């Protein structure tokens, strides 16, 4: 029923997972975090969002997952005007969007496994399936030994990977990742990108905000560069 609705909605808006039209976001008193941004992300695409610190990447991701409202403009996700969604509809859409926040938003008094499980528990996945999925993810991110540690006891690099694991755990249709490799060495960065690529191959649309050139340089993916809240360029990785 619900998936049926989704496909019809998607058909209506063509092939785009995200559609932004003239979106602005300002903060009092006079900070223009984003001005007049228009672009789209196709369903199944892996999309990069780059720009210096303070350029507006995090703000843009927060708008997409409805953590914040735009001051102006229209945002559609999976065909829904996300700012008109409320209550159960918003909750159901959020279950299908996985977000790895820049500040992680982990529960530091819970174990690594519990933190990852939360994303699956809210959509009533079976405990056995959750356990299995958590083990798989920790394995892929080389965190198996941390399964029962409290996330508060982990290093920042480890916390970052736990946040990432939580964002992909529920196999969402859309994955938003904010600076996923900020605290990681190159081998671990590779593991993280592997995991995201695999999710993308499995059908998820992935949006990655980063200033780490190594992860987008040689790809064929589209890259949107923000400068001081404005869209500076929208190119493919191998065109740099």
């Amino acid at each position, binding site marked *: 029923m619900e998936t049926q609705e989704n496909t019809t909605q998607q058909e209506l808006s063509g092939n785009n997972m995200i559609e932004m039209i003239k979106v602005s976001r300002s903060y009092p008193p006079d900070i223009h975090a984003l001005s007049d941004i228009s672009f789209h992300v196709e369903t199944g695409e892996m999309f990069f969002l780059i720009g210096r610190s303070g350029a507006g990447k995090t703000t843009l991701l927060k708008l997409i997952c409805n953590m914040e409202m735009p001051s102006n403009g229209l945002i559609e996700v999976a065909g829904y005007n996300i700012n008109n969604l409320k209550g159960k509809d918003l*909750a159901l859409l*959020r*279950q*299908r969007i996985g977000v790895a926040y820049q500040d992680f938003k982990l*529960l530091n008094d819970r174990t690594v496994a519990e933190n990852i499980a939360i994303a699956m528990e*809210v959509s*009533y996945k079976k405990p056995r399936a959750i356990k299995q999925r958590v083990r798989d993810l920790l394995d892929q991110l080389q965190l198996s030994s941390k399964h029962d540690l409290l996330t508060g006891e982990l290093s920042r690099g480890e916390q970052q990977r736990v946040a990432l694991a*939580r964002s992909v755990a529920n196999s969402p249709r859309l994955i938003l990742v904010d600076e996923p490799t900020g605290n990681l060495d190159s081998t671990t960065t590779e593991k993280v990108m592997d995991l995201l690529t695999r999710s993308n191959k499995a059908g998820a649309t992935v949006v990655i905000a980063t200033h780490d050139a190594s992860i987008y340089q040689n790809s064929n993916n589209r890259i949107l560069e923000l400068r001081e809240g404005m869209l500076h360029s929208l190119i493919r990785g191998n065109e740099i």
Partner: protein
Amino acid sequence: MNFWFAVIRQTGRNLRQTWSSQFMTFLTVSLSVLIFAFFSLIYTNMLGAGDRLTDDLSLIVYLQEEPGLAMKEQLRRKILAFDEVEELRFVSRTEAYERFAKQLGKDSDVLLDMPTDFLPASIEIVPLRSLRGYSQIKLFSEYLSSLPGTEKVQYGQEWIERFYHFVRLLTIVVVLSGTLLILTATFMVAYTIRLTILGRQDELELLKLVGATTSYIQTPFLIEGILQGLLGSIIGLLALYGLFQWISTRFTGPGILNFFQFDFFSPFILIAIVVASISLCALGSYTSIRKFLLI
């Protein structure tokens, strides 16, 4: 099915994390129920005793003169004009004398020197059962004393009056203590849930972000409130029952308690108390979580 599994798991987490304040709330609820039910129990028993007290109530109208036939007929008509009565009997001076002598039994020789008409004639009236409220009896007696030729009306005024004063006082105590205790208990439950919510704000925020529905977030808190209400009232009532048993075994035998014939609550009242307690506690937790979800 899966929803309830998730909700119960979440409730378990809540209880484990905040068990000490949960326990305090549980104590408050059971104490409130205990105190309130204690006063109510005394109150309902008093009302029962009041009914029994007025069961064998009769009014005696003392007359100035021995009434003649016509006078009797007139009095009877006037009394019946006020209300139907269960029984109405004229007692002549001689009858009164003979009754008194009989009551004295072997001491009746003290009456030998007295004239047989030294007691006044009277009318004994047993009012209808429907007329047995205290204020109605009072009205009736005022009416009777206004009849011609009556000297005085008697029905054990003082005793009944004092009893009804006591019942009125008890009503106030029950209503006041009830209101206070209900407010305290509801407030305590709301307060504990708010503490839980404040202590777990990060988690609740995150739950919203990962797409937990309102009922997923809210139901565990509601269950917590319901559990508080259920366990609190059951323990409170059990404590009261223990107290009741203790008092009844202590004070058996002839005495004032026998006259009152102390009864415990009927099953219906017991269930009503439990249900009321559950509803109030659920209401307390509901308002708290509602406030949070609106932010």
